């Protein structure tokens, strides 16, 4: 009799609990709805179409002659040394620019949180400003400034002339620091003051506070910047765009895909290349997400961090 009653309450509790879970999931889905609906209506079809294109020899000049060719486009990728080189070029571009960009953004954001710095409004504007210079002008700015430098500094001092575009990529990377800086800085500003106060009372110096409080607290933002810079290097979505024309990209792989698509009009092969790039990018990202469990800090870590 007693036992029956106990079983009954456990079941009841379980029922109440599962009901609450179900309710929570329903409300959660309601919040996710805008993106889910948008995905189904506007994204899913084009993505599926791109997948189908990659299995055909779709040529934009002769769309009526399109035929299903199976995995031929993917097999072609493996014998296309130029595509492989561009894929590695993208990886190289990522490794060359992103660590530099992130280190500088982190240092600048750390300086910005100091109460001693004056004129933050102007400084923030000046640092971000370079990230919105239109693509059409940026090359001329560099060329013109290099000429000025030659005439004013290098020639009078008998220094050898500056060799071409080698400097350009790191410089453009640094000049695109605005979004990364803003994201890391806003994360730093969101760290509750009380934590710093507590650490200060415990005798932690500024360096220790940065390492043991700031870095863990902003690790989600650092992780975000890392993933987004990765996608940018391979031609995925960008946080900010200088308004490059359709066929141009700073990412070597995206440049190659664009060339296949716009110059050669070979949409089938371009799609296959895009999916290969996507697979590479996604594997790196999944690895990053897995590793993030070890270095990205969330206050209440639960199971939905990982992919």
């Amino acid at each position: 009799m007693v036992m029956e009653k106990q079983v009954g309450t456990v079941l009841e509790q379980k029922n109440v609990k599962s009901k609450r879970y179900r309710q929570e999931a329903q409300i959660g889905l309601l919040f996710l709805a805008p993106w889910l609906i948008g995905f189904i209506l506007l994204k899913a079809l084009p993505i599926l179409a791109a997948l189908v294109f990659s299995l055909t020899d779709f040529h934009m000049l002769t769309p009526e002659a399109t035929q299903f060719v199976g995995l031929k486009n993917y097999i072609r990728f493996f014998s296309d040394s130029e595509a492989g080189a561009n894929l590695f070029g993208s990886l190289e571009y990522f490794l060359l620019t992103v660590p530099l960009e992130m280190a500088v953004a982190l240092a600048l954001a750390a300086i910005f949180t100091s109460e001693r710095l004056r004129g933050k409004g102007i400084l923030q504007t000046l640092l971000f400003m370079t990230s919105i210079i239109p693509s059409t002008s940026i090359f001329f700015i560099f060329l013109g400034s290099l000429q000025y430098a030659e005439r004013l500094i290098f020639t009078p001092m008998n220094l050898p002339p500056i060799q071409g575009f080698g400097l350009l990529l790191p410089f453009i990377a640094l000049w695109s620091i605005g979004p990364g800086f803003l994201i890391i800085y806003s994360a730093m500003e969101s760290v509750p003051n009380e934590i710093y106060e507590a650490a200060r009372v415990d005798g932690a110096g500024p360096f220790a506070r940065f390492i043991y409080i700031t870095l863990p607290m902003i690790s989600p933002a650092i992780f975000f910047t890392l993933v987004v810079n990765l996608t940018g290097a391979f031609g995925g979505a960008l946080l900010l765009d200088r308004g490059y024309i359709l066929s141009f990209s700073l990412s070597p792989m995206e440049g190659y895909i664009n060339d296949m698509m716009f110059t050669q009009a070979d949409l089938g092969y371009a799609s296959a290349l895009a999916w290969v790039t996507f697979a590479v990018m996604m594997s790196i990202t999944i690895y990053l997400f897995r590793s993030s469990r070890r270095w990205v800090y969330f206050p209440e870590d639960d199971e939905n961090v990982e992919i």
Partner: protein
Amino acid sequence: MLRSKRRAEHSTLSFKLWDFTGTALLNLFMFLFVLVYLSPLPFMVIASLTPSNQFLDANAPILPSERVKFNYEGKDLIVYKVPFEDGERNLALYKPSRQSSEFIDPEHPEAGTITWQGSWRALKAVYHLKPTLDNFKEFFAASKVTLYFKNTIIIAIISEIGVLLSSIAVAYGFSRFRIPGIRYIFFLLIATIMIPSNITLVPTYYLFSGHMLDWIGTWLPLIIPHFFGSAILIFLLRQNFKSIPRDLDEAAMLDGAGPLRILVSVILPQSIPVVTTVALLHFFYIWNETRMASLYLGISPNLQTISFGIQRTQSFFFTPEALMVGALVVMAIPVVILFISRRFFMQDMIVTQIEK
């Protein structure tokens, strides 16, 4: 007690001196950094104020200048630096010829012509400093800049409202609710960020074209998709929302607050810096965007946005000074907005409505 002791320590003279030096060094460092960082920018301003023919002369000075001219017998003569045995003289070229040319001395025109042996083409012209706004005038005359500004601001504001509302809601959904399979939905979200954007261009164009939605030549393709949230911004907001401790949510929940109320009065007040960042990033994204504008507004020039409109005008002139003028015009409003946005990053802005 400990605190008052520390404060006493702080007020000693040596600490003040140390404090002052630290502040000075930090500010000096930032000043020097910005100076180097922005060193290519003077070219932009100088070039935009430079008369157009100056770039054609390799010997022209760097600052915006004009050739010195001398009016003689109703004609404008160009003044050159002419080398003589006893030094260089600034003379106006009167009769150019291959082997020897005749010059007039602007200071003594009554003395008559001076003949100089040599090719006048090798001579350097004399310049005087004269910045001009002609480049801006020409640019504005050739381009409907004010119309483009108006269009872009309307598009940016409407899509900004949409993207903020939906991205915040979705990010909240991703960061606070236990939903079965949510990690796969999040995986899908990340995947949409990673798909190279141009590859869905043709099918997306087809979707927006007369075959299906018939949105070409309207602002709808530039506005409506943002009302479903931007994956990249959702990801950014979700990272921030997840790093906010849940104890305040739970306290609010015990007080009877619903999910929406928790979002508005617990989560958002603690996220003002990141929401500002998201708003700025989206605004600048729309402002700089040219691919969508060129695809969907190419046929309706009166609906065109600023970046693409300026790009068109620039390609029409395609001179260094026009490119710089265009860049300055496009950047003007974002710079003002950046400056204003500053106050949203300050920590005293962040107020939580529930006492901690």
